[in-house]
């Protein structure tokens, strides 16, 4: 049982949907990002998705690209990203952290060393966009062996024939990408998402969380209503980009969380 499993057990008991918030480590700077992350549980966030900055985020739209760029320009590294997780863990022992990013910084550090350090830093799960099931031996299998969840993306192009392969080595939850596209682009529609989530749920007992293209409390509510929870990323990161003060960012996160929890 990881913190992620515990969190879904608690939410099930409370009859609530999960709200997952994405923020980029080191954005706009290391200290402010930590302050935001520390404030997320208080704003109602059930699971924190922490972005690992990368120069070439191929699945991300301009908002998250620029967030990664700001972080890297400020000297953010994988080491400092893990330090952010460690600092968060000093104040919070229960809220899961999922590290989301691309493979190269992890590969560059060395998979074994990365897993050891990430686990010690209190990271509970990984989402690595450019590692499909075909490359499971790279990181997915070692991560599971190290007791970390490896959360897979399922997408509108993942057809029934392929779904079992995608689900096979997934743990923690399944992340359904609601659109074909990049983060922060098109708006997800609950009517499109509902049958897809049902299709995935018929093939797995894992919770299915929906992300990409959710921007408002209303959308968080309607999407969470047809799944086990919702993820919001770009809409939060946008406020960081605009230089909004941390309390204002957290107030907006709270409104999103309330939306998802109303579902």
């Amino acid at each position, binding site marked *: 049982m990881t913190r992620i499993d515990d969190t879904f057990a608690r939410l099930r008991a409370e009859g609530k949907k999960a709200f997952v918030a994405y923020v980029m480590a080191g954005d706009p700077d290391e200290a402010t990002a930590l302050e935001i992350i520390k404030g997320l549980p208080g704003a109602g966030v059930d699971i924190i998705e922490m972005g690992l*900055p*990368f*120069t*070439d*985020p*191929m*699945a*991300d*739209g*301009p908002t998250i*690209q620029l967030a990664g760029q700001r972080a*890297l320009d400020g000297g953010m*590294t*994988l*080491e400092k990203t893990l330090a952010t997780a460690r600092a968060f863990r000093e104040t919070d022992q229960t809220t899961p952290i999922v590290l989301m990013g*691309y*493979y*190269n*910084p*992890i*590969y*560059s*550090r060395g998979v074994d060393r990365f897993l050891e350090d990430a686990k010690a830093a209190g990271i509970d799960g990984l989402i690595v*966009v*450019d*590692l*499909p*099931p*075909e*490359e499971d031996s790279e990181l997915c299998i070692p991560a599971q062996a190290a007791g970390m969840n490896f959360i*897979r*993306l*399922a*997408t*509108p*192009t*993942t*057809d029934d024939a*392929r779904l079992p392969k*995608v689900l096979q080595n997934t743990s923690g939850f399944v992340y359904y*990408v609601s659109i*074909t*596209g*990049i983060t922060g*682009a098109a708006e997800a529609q609950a009517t499109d998402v509902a049958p897809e989530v049902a299709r995935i749920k018929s093939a797995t007992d894992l919770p299915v969380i929906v992300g990409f293209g959710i921007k408002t409390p209303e959308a968080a509510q309607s999407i969470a209503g047809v799944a086990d929870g919702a993820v919001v990323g770009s809409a939060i990161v946008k406020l960081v980009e605009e230089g909004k003060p941390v309390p204002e960012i957290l107030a907006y996160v709270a409104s999103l969380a309330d939306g998802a929890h109303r579902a």
Partner: protein
Amino acid sequence: MPNDLFNSFMTGPDENGRFGDFGGRFVSETLMPLILSLEEEYDRAKDDPSFWAQMDDLWEHYVGRPSPLYFAEGLTKHLGGAKIYLKRDELNHTGAHKINNVLGQILLARRMGKTRIIAETGAGQHGVATATVCAKFGLKCVVYMGAHDVERQAPNVFRMRLLGAEVIPVTSGRGTLKDAMNDALRDWVTNVRDTFYCIGTVAGPHPYPAMVRDFQAIIGKEAKAQIMKAEGRLPDTIIAAIGGGSNAMGLFFPFLDDKDVQIIGVEAGGKGVNQKMEHCASLTGGRPGVLHGNRTYLLQDDDGQILEGFSISAGLDYPGIGPEHAWLHEIGRAQYVSITDVEALEAFQLSCQTEGIIPALEPSHALAHVMKIAPELPADHIIIMNMCGRGDKDIFTVARHLGFDMSGPEGRSVE
């Protein structure tokens, strides 16, 4: 040597798209099903004689193949050593080797029922080739090109627009080929159902590196037959410039099992490989990593962040290299060297002066290495160099570097 004892270099990639540890399919799930169906379609086409009959017909009548293998007497005399042959792929329709591969991919796209073609381009040669073939077949074409490259390769931008393509300048990163490829991948993820991504080099997720190599291998196949006819034997050395590595792989592949043929790839050394990262020499100055769908040698910092390369040649300005080259480098079958901007400019001028051939800046890098080695070699040493592109697109860049004012009425040199 009996076949079963012969350890062939031509069997890769394996079923996972790996050349040794390199290659693979490091893409998001959204693209994975499409990449698998492309692989299936390519496997079918590869064994379909009608596919290759169509390719041969287009290569002959539309591209103008076979391209000549030309004995460069002027260069040979000037350098005073090895006998130098140029494989004249700069004479192809659109002026470079890029169209060899584009034709194959567009025929595949048509087989797959895709109606919209996207491409990334650096020098603009791949973009022009893609726009050209799309115009011929009436397909919608969108080309991503780094904003910096749009500026330094302006004639090709206009060419693409004339051919009906939409050219999208990419401003993320430093605005070069790597960034164009990122945005092309983002477009593909968004429009995956109707769009075919026509990659311009032997990089990207499997099956692209193998597929592009197979389409470009026409260069080496022709060269082999042509040198046998001209000299009655194989060459001693073959040389090509490397951006992603497609013209090089095309020349090299048919010679991989001819173990007496020395193979040399020339990377862009920019301002010099010793000066930190002001170059694009992935093999000589990088280390293995994962980018754009494959594991290969990359220019990157200690944290695994990708670095921007630097080269006078937009077509070589890429921080990676095709995975098959990474493998050939590691096993030692091919040798990789680098050439600086200054050396390439010198070779550019020498080709103009001794052969009456204005080369692209990319093969000028290969020629610069020929200039280094040929004088030391005996007269019976045969070199084949891939003259993979012509220099019309580069005259503005070269003029600037040589201090020549093209806007002046007499085109006088400026101080």
